[in-house]
């Protein structure tokens, strides 16, 4: 079980590194799916099997497919990959990498100093999650519904193309 956790973590980290270094968007998205599947394995090992299923269905399924649809609608050519390669070259990665690495080292120092290990993991099943979700957190569920509704309306409103008036008598006169 411990070896499975470390292997899944290594796959998740390697796949994420591949995502952030690719020049082609579709390749990056395929590595992103691999990363999400590895994290789903980690969730399963931590005793959250319901969340592992949600991770596969919603993240690796719905969200990635949505991004792929948009990439297909944009109809990007080979020049996009070339431009991405041009943007990524040089020492652009060094400064942000150093800053992020310092933050990570600080985080690791804080985590290792607390000493939380030595406890058994407990399996929290979907029943407990459901009881909690529709008991004390029911206001959060309702607010999530409102958020999704406004997301749908916002996406429709923002994604709408402006209609062109084809009839010459209906056109507004130019100022």
């Amino acid at each position, binding site marked *: 079980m411990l070896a499975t956790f470390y292997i899944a973590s290594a796959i998740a980290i390697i796949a994420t590194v591949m*995502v952030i270094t690719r020049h082609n968007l579709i390749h990056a998205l395929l590595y992103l799916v691999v990363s*999400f599947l590895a994290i789903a394995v980690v*969730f399963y090992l931590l005793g959250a099997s319901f969340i592992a299923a949600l991770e596969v269905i919603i993240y690796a399924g719905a969200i990635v497919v949505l*991004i792929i649809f948009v990439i297909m609608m*944009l109809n*990007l050519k080979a020049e996009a990959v070339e431009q991405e390669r041009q*943007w990524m070259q040089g020492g652009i990665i060094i400064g942000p990498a150093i800053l992020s690495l310092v933050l990570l080292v600080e985080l690791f120092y804080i985590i290792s100093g607390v000493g939380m290990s030595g406890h058994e993991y407990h399996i*929290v099943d979907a029943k407990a999650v459901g009881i909690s979700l529709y008991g004390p957190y029911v206001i959060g569920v309702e607010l999530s519904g409102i958020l999704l509704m406004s997301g749908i309306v916002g996406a429709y409103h923002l994604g709408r193309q402006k209609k062109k008036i084809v009839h010459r008598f209906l056109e507004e006169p130019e100022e």
Partner: protein
Amino acid sequence: MDTIPVEAGLLLAGILFMLGLLSVLIRRNIIFMLISVEIMLNAAGLAFIVAGARWAQADGQVMFVFILTMAAAEVSVGLALILQIYHQLKTLDSDAANKMKG
């Protein structure tokens, strides 16, 4: 049965969050920046799951469900904005969208 150390789970979440942050900082393509935000949200959810499993509480998984909802709404609105930006400016460069008109 060997138990997974809590530090290892939190460290994995930290590394994934750092990789997403790094990608937001170095990329100029706006779709790659959206993907990086997804990676960071997922890493934050992983930290919630690790804490929920350690203390045997359902709250961690509840928070992950809320993060998932928020990520879905965010990615739909973000992709609609990206489509509009691409139709107006004919590029995915985030630096090209630095002027507000109208």
